[in-house]
């Protein structure tokens, strides 16, 4: 049962072969047994989970279950959960219990999904390795000396180790896709505005977008369908009719042997240049060959400004973060220094104690680039680059339907290997960040293994609102391959 897909779990629940309470206990026991090593959860709430599971069982008994009713899930600790600790991976919020549910939490709760707990993450979603958590680093289930990627490293590791069949995450610069790649699971970040940000603790508002992790594209489609849709509480939420992303997966192909016939896959030369590790290149090229075998054609495309994505991102995201994180001042909630003199001293001490090094670094950078006299040179220039990058993608999508490439330039690295070199750390997001700058949807799926048996992810980038195409494309690939079914030894 621990390796079952969501569809299989649904069938088993509906057939009475298992119950939601049984499933919750099964996965909670795995968390108890394995998470001491992995550290993928910050909070596990067994009592609450079992209450929700009992309610789900009652609903299943009445025959009114939805696709996710009774399915255990976990939320990244960036989502506010009413009555449950919501830390955002930070000491600043280590005592914060939200009085309300995030939109995503509310929707999955309404769908009957059973939240087992809140997953570990880089503090305030700032990081690419999950080493920036106040609650300690998360370990990669494939090799526990390695990082799982970040910032949604807890969710990715938990799904990879089958501590939970599916989990939510957020992706500001690659924080769903990169950990999905590094832990060998499937993860999707939809078009900016498809999922409401209400109740999702903001890092960089114009980039932040919720996404999901699961073993397969098929499972991701079920999860994404549950959380996507317009929410009037988020002014950047897009007013579009709700979409069922599973539908596209169920359509039968005209040419069963070549189910992707007609699909044009763009291969940006910039994503296959220097800096791409040989083992990752080999796995990604093999996966692309598989796509060709499935009927897709490939075309070389150019994203000439993609190399500017990281500098642009590391101006704009910190700028927004420096302002977004101002509310954490120790006045109304969160960490307040035990002793302080005047008001300024309280601010200084509370924030100095409450925030970790990477968060402080980004607040400082963001404050600097917004300062009088620097705004034009940094912030406005970076906004221009952002438009150029979006324009690159627009041009590329005139030649292709999806863009493919590696999700991450390397496989998972050793814990501690990059912690002293923030720039090296930032460069690990070189293929994912441009997608956030443009607000496009992106997906990462397992595409084999590199050196040391570490997972490699392939990134598919779609045009705006092309989530169904991304999921459908990955699904065809997963029907023909079994990389997504491989499990780390720890999950056995």
């Amino acid at each position, binding site marked *: 049962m621990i390796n079952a897909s969501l569809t299989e779990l649904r069938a088993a629940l509906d057939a009475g072969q298992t119950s939601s309470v049984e499933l919750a206990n099964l996965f909670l026991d795995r968390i108890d047994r394995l998470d001491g090593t992995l550290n993928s959860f910050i909070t596990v709430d067994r009592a609450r989970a079992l209450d929700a599971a009992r309610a789900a069982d009652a609903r299943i008994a009445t025959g009114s279950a939805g696709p996710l009713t009774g399915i255990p899930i976990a939320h990244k600790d960036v989502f506010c959960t009413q009555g449950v600790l919501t830390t955002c991976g930070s000491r600043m919020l280590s005592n914060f219990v939200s009085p309300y549910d995030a939109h995503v939490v509310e929707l999955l709760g309404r769908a009957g999904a059973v939240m087992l707990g809140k997953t570990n993450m880089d503090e305030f979603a700032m990081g690419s390795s999950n080493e920036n958590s106040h609650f300690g680093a998360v370990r990669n289930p494939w090799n526990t000396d390695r990082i799982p990627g970040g910032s949604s490293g807890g969710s990715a590791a938990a799904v990879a180790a089958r501590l939970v069949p599916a989990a939510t995450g957020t992706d500001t610069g690659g924080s769903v896709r990169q950990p999905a790649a590094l832990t060998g699971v499937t993860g999707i970040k939809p078009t900016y505005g498809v999922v409401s940000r*209400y*109740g999702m603790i903001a890092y*960089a508002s114009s980039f932040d977008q919720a996404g999901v992790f699961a073993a397969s594209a098929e499972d991701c489609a079920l999860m994404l369908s549950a959380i996507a849709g317009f929410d009037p509480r988020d*002014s950047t939420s897009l007013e579009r009719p709700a979409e069922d992303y599973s539908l596209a997966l169920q359509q039968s192909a005209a040419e069963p042997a070549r189910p992707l016939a007609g699909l044009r896959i763009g291969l940006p030369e910039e994503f296959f240049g220097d800096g791409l590790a040989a083992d990752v290149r080999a796995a990604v090229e093999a996966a692309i060959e598989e796509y060709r075998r499935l009927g897709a054609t490939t075309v070389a495309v150019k994203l000439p400004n993609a190399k500017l994505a990281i500098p642009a991102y590391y101006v704009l995201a910190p700028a927004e973060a*420096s302002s977004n994180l101002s*509310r*954490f001042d120790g*006045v109304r909630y969160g960490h307040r220094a035990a002793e302080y003199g005047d008001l300024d001293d309280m601010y200084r001490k509370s924030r100095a104690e409450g925030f970790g090094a990477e968060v402080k670094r980004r607040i400082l950078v963001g404050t600097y680039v*917004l300062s009088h006299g620097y705004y034009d040179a940094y*912030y406005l220039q970076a906004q221009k680059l952002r438009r150029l990058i979006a324009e690159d993608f627009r041009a590329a999508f005139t030649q292709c339907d999806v863009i493919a490439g590696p999700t991450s330039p390397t496989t998972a690295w050793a814990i501690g290997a990059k912690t002293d070199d923030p720039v090296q750390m930032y460069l690990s997001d070189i293929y994912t960040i441009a997608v956030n700058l443009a607000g496009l949807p992106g997906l990462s799926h397992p595409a084999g293994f590199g050196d040391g048996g570490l997972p490699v992810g392939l990134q598919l980038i779609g045009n705006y609102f092309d989530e169904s195409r991304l999921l459908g494309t990955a699904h065809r690939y997963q029907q023909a391959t079994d990389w997504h079914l491989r499990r780390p030894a720890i999950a056995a």
Partner: protein
Amino acid sequence: MSRNDWEVVIGLEVHAQLNTASKIFSGASTAFGSEPNRQASAVDIALPGVLPVLNRGAVERAIRFGLAIDAQVAPKSVFARKNYFYPDLPKGYQISQFELPVVSGGTITIRVGEGDKAYEKTVNLTRAHLEEDAGKSLHEDFHGMSGIDLNRAGTPLLEIVSEPDMRSSAEAVAYARALHALVRWIEICDGNMQEGSFRCDANVSVRRPGGPLGTRREIKNLNSFRFLQQAIDFEVQWQIERLEDGGTIQQATVLFDPDTGETRVMRTKEDAHDYRYFPDPDLMPLVIVPEWIDRVREQLPELPAAMKARFIDDYGLSAYDATTLTASREVATYYQAAVDAAGQAQAKTCANWVMGDLAARLNKAELDVTASPVSPTQLAGLVTRIADNTISNAIGKKVFDALWNGEGDSADDIIEAQGLKQVTDSGAIEAMIDEVLAANQKSVDEFRAGKEKAFNALVGQVMKASRGKANPAQVNEILRRKLGG
């Protein structure tokens, strides 16, 4: 050198609280005076993860204002974050507008001074932008600590910025009063200055006439017209004295202390904040389509400037009368209703009554015109009876008092019930005059000896005998005929 060698330059920034039922970015109520923090929603207290949603009612009020001052309403404006730390600013930034405000330009015409020295002046506005108010820090009753009340946090404000066009505290006050009347006139702000619904900041500098602008100091948070005047007068005096003593003015923000009548420095330019404005990524640009503006325009009432022009052109009122009657929407509405009932020919008489007896009585009773015991229709009825000689002007005042005291439903009722109808029967008047002449031989003699004053005494006696009801014109005429004989 004397004070007269300096020119005063004043610009005002006014924060008008918009009278929406809910806040500008949350659904919490904006009602004043509830228990602290009872009207602060998750958005207002800036819980982690919450997001702002713009209240269209606030935008609509900004459009109304833009149209009322004949300004440009921006088809696209942008909300920006103004970043600074303060305990009553829950997010650590205020959502405001910076580079692209919703309203740009526009003018307000003011009338300054009284009598012969009165003059009109047009003040140019720079811009008006939407923003949210902060909460309040309460420094008393907390045993050396401060309390925070976030009920006001997120209340919609329209910050209205004038050009530095004013040259005296009198002009500044006239502008502030005109603006105050206008925002109430178009019903976007209740104008309650005690409750902080209309707050003025004054930027004040002095210079040699024709010279470059002096360094300004900004007087913050003036919540009455009197304080505005006192604060500017003090500030001007202070700046001039300092300059004449060979000193310089440092750019600064100052506070006015009503107890001492002085301003004192709150912060100087050196410790001014760098607000790090940038577009708020949580809010889309505010797009206002022409159709929206048209809809708002259709709903606008007649504006004071147009009404004033009409009163002058159509009713023949003086500029002074027209200005006075359009100083507030309530008075103008009252006056208009009276004229509508009495007829345009009585417009001037109605104006005299509204600005004279009615205003005096209201003032004495400390009543607003909307609470006047005498309705516009009742006043029109009274004016009509004076015009058609049913009663004299003097009896009119009696009838007005009776209406005020609720002695009857209409002027006609009172005239009838109290027998105040003017006597125009010349036979009856002649009889009364004969009696008066017989009883006042001394006055008759004096008149005949050339004392014109004696004539007035005789008229008075006749009026007295008629208990004021005799038609004064007829009395004059008949009396003169009899005496002149």
